[in-house]
């Protein structure tokens, strides 16, 4: 089992706390003029996404979390789980709903995702920053109603709903920024 000393703490380091994997968001070294030094850290739980503050005695050690990021291709959803494949090893893995989280709204077959593995199993899935998706339903619009920022809701093939400009129609492909959930442009094809 690997351990990190507080001296090795820095943003991005993956550690185990109370049985869960965490990533260090911010590490601050604090020490009175004389006496005990502390590392005050903000850590994010990689399972729940919640950020908390923790204090360690400087010099203490913490178990390392076996967490790696890898790029994998999304294959399909079998109704319960999402199947991914490593592009070089062709190794396949499945991720459950908590791991896929918000990414489920954006990904479709063949998309390359960043899959974070904990002890070799998917812990979280990050969709590509930009995805191209087909609009399956939106109001025909063009009624000249520009209230609400001049847009209208559109349902995409993955089930996600985004605001699109009035001129965009059902059946068209659009590019969406998955980090903000916002429409970027119309797209010619996927």
């Amino acid at each position: 089992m690997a351990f990190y000393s507080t001296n090795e703490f820095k943003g991005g380091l993956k550690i185990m706390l109370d049985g869960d994997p965490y990533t260090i968001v911010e590490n601050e070294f604090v020490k009175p003029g004389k006496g005990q030094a502390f590392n005050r850290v903000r850590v994010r739980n990689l399972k729940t996404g919640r950020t908390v503050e923790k204090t360690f005695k400087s010099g203490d050690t913490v178990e390392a979390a076996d967490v790696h990021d890898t790029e994998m291709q999304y294959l399909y959803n079998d109704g319960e789980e999402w199947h991914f494949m490593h592009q070089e090893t062709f190794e396949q893995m499945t991720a459950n709903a908590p791991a896929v989280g918000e990414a489920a709204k954006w990904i479709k077959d063949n998309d390359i995702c960043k899959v974070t593995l904990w002890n070799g199993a998917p812990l979280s899935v990050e969709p590509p920053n930009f995805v191209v998706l087909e609009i399956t339903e939106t109001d025909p619009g063009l009624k000249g109603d520009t209230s609400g920022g001049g847009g209208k809701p559109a349902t995409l093939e993955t089930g996600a709903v985004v605001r699109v400009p009035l001129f965009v129609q059902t059946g068209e492909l659009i590019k969406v920024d998955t980090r903000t959930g916002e429409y970027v442009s119309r797209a010619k094809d996927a």
Partner: protein
Amino acid sequence: MTTASNGVGHLTEFPDPSSEFEGADWRPSASLERIRARADLLGRARAFFAAAGVMEVETPILSRAAVTDPALASLRTSIEGPGGDRALYLNTSPEFAMKRLVAAGSGPIYQICKVFRDAERGRRHHPEFTLLEWYRPGWDHQRLMNEVADLVRAILGRPDMPDERIRYRDLFMRQLDLDPWSASIESLRCAAADAGMVDAGHLELDRDGWLDLLLTHRLESGLGRGGMTFLHDYPPSQAALARVRPGPFPAGERFELYIEGIELANGFHELTDADEQRRRFMDDLVVRRDLGLPEPPVDDAFLAALASGMPDCSGVALGLDRLLMIAAEADHIDQVLTFPVERA
């Protein structure tokens, strides 16, 4: 179904975003403006002491002996010479050598020098930093606090900067309703939890550790707002190298200066009793042994100087990099250093 097998070795490691800054970046991390501000600050400090009749001295960076304080980690090197290699320690402060000068009859002295502390790195910490340390024979810590305040006003160019003094015990009583002289470890632990530190229950600390936690996490940030706050008269267990004043609440005659929540200086009405000093060194070494820390040689020359009849005096060490951070409105120590340790 997870089929992780042994594929991990093939998986792509995403580069740590910070590593792109670890290239061969040769430029200083401080702006030229702040490099000039340091030169200006050093000039003002020297002018202040010249006017005050305090002599500038130099003492060795390297020493055969090292500080025993378990909370300080000395860097160690070795020297080749007749009789073989010998270990030498980089000083964590010039305190012992300067007191030997005072004991030798130097009168008031000051020094501006680099000191080294291992395993200290952060927004306000750098393992190599610049101390301004000075000694005033015949003065007590109260009188020295006046001079520290005058020096800070002169260096910052703020002649009207106010200063206040608050006793360590009063600060805890006022802010936390706790008597640091008598509060149980359990009540200190509860105070930390009450102050919103939900994970405080996990920490294994001794009494002074809990007091340090409350001070650094809950109290310090409020000190020195809009001026200078001198925190003084510490619990005897935290007297370090200060004399302890007897009384119903015996207090270490020690002070620290805070400006805008930043700890800047530590001063003592110096302990001059060689036997008591040796006892404290030995107690430190016992703690070091319990903690599995190195047990460096005790500075016998310093103890001999005390035993020779060290004059009553007070001394203080002030972190010049932090004072420069305040003068130059920097929020990270790297902004006032030319080349931080990661690319020194």
